[in-house]
């Protein structure tokens, strides 16, 4: 059930927690979500390594409407190029006001999952297209 209007709720939830409880709580919410709700997924990343992460995201984005994403694993590192972020696209297409910190949910939720799996998550770009990378924690991102 990939109904794109659910992106409205992702955006609204971030706004509500930010405005009601503050940015620190929002970050903790996102990180808890990564640690708890996605614990099993992070475990699979840990067991399968970079290729498992790339395969997981390739499969995931197949089910996100209008996503244009490639995920490639090489030398224990995953690089994911998000040419079209399906969430930002749908929110924009529907005229929704996107919270300026929307893209940070990836930093914190994916970041917490990556940490569990023994990786460091790095994002560059955002608000529609970005590059997301997963480096083994033993490797500094600038070495990749």
């Amino acid at each position, binding site marked *: 059930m990939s109904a794109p209007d659910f992106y409205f*709720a992702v955006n*609204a*939830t971030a706004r509500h927690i930010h405005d009601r*409880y503050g940015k620190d709580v929002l970050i903790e919410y996102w990180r*808890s979500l990564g640690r708890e709700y*996605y614990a099993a997924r992070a475990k699979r990343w840990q067991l399968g390594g970079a290729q498992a992460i790339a395969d997981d995201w390739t499969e*995931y*984005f197949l089910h*996100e409407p209008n996503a244009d994403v490639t995920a490639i694993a090489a030398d224990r590192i995953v690089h994911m190029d998000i040419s079209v972020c399906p969430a930002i696209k749908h929110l924009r297409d529907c005229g929704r006001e996107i919270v300026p910190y929307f893209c940070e*949910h990836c930093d914190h939720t994916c970041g917490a999952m990556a940490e569990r799996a023994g990786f460091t998550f790095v994002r560059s770009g955002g608000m529609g297209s970005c590059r997301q990378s997963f480096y083994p924690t033993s490797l500094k991102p600038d070495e990749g």
Partner: protein
Amino acid sequence: MLGCQDFCGYYEWTFHYLRRRFGEAALAEYWSDAIAADSQRHYLDAARTEGLRGLYKTWAQTGVDEVCDWTVTLDEPSNLLRLDMRECPSKGYLLSNDLNADEDYCDHCMGWIGPALHQIGAEVAAHEHNHCGQCWWEIRNVAAEQPPIEVASDIRRDPRWSIGYLDRYSHQEKLPIVADSDRIDSVDVLRDWFASSTRIVALGANAQLPASSRADAVIVSGGRYALGDLEQVSSVLVEHIPELLPAIARVYRARKVRPLLVHPYLPQQPRLDFVEHQLPRATPILPLLIRSGAYCHHAGQATPGFYALAAMLAAALQKSLVLPDDVDATTLVHNSQASQTPV
């Protein structure tokens, strides 16, 4: 990225996060402010423009997007927009993926629809859901007549309606969850039922009642109760075994003083049809166990047995638990410990 394909899963997890960290009122505020007024504001826009017809069009589109198996009925002369859900895809996602982080996922619909309708002069005139993916709604303008209307698609005529347990609403107010009680929360029903006892005696299959248990609450498994030899039973914790229901029903109906039937309603276990056996729908125990922190559901985990559930129930009610001599209490600890990360 937080996608839309698994949204219902982390949406439910979010309810639990807000509830455990900030309390029940915070969750109600979230549904009202974030969901009704922000995420779902296109419903409000449509209703302000076209009234019930606007809501009908918006819900019809949602039904297409979310692949709902339902019937949406608009009868404007009768001031009625009615929804009859045969298989809720949202609850269905949780059931099929063995997800049950929060006490009651189904509450969220009333949580946002109620406040949204209030803003436009309409209301949920009547609503029931059975926590298994079936529900019905009557949405009407408050200021107009609300004549009773029957619809052919009424989900209550569907055999699936008799599974699960019901939450019921009238004019946006929640109604008592069980007969002969004014309690609208299953947690209060359970606390009331066991209030007069300080100890709970648990009896599973073949266990015998201890001699000195007069002042105790006795909770038995469905299989034990079905033997029919116990008079002093406070509550029956019915297992997820449909085959036990006929025997349980025979004993239950033969008693003048009847126990409270309780049941875990775990997501991927067989669903029991209490109504078919002329039994009251059992009171759910998971909301109490989750709220108290006695239980945390993890997809794919082993299903807790009768004694583990009884131990969690006693812990949640802050009662001492008495077990048969041959049951090792230490083996129950693993099953009954919540393991989520505290926040």
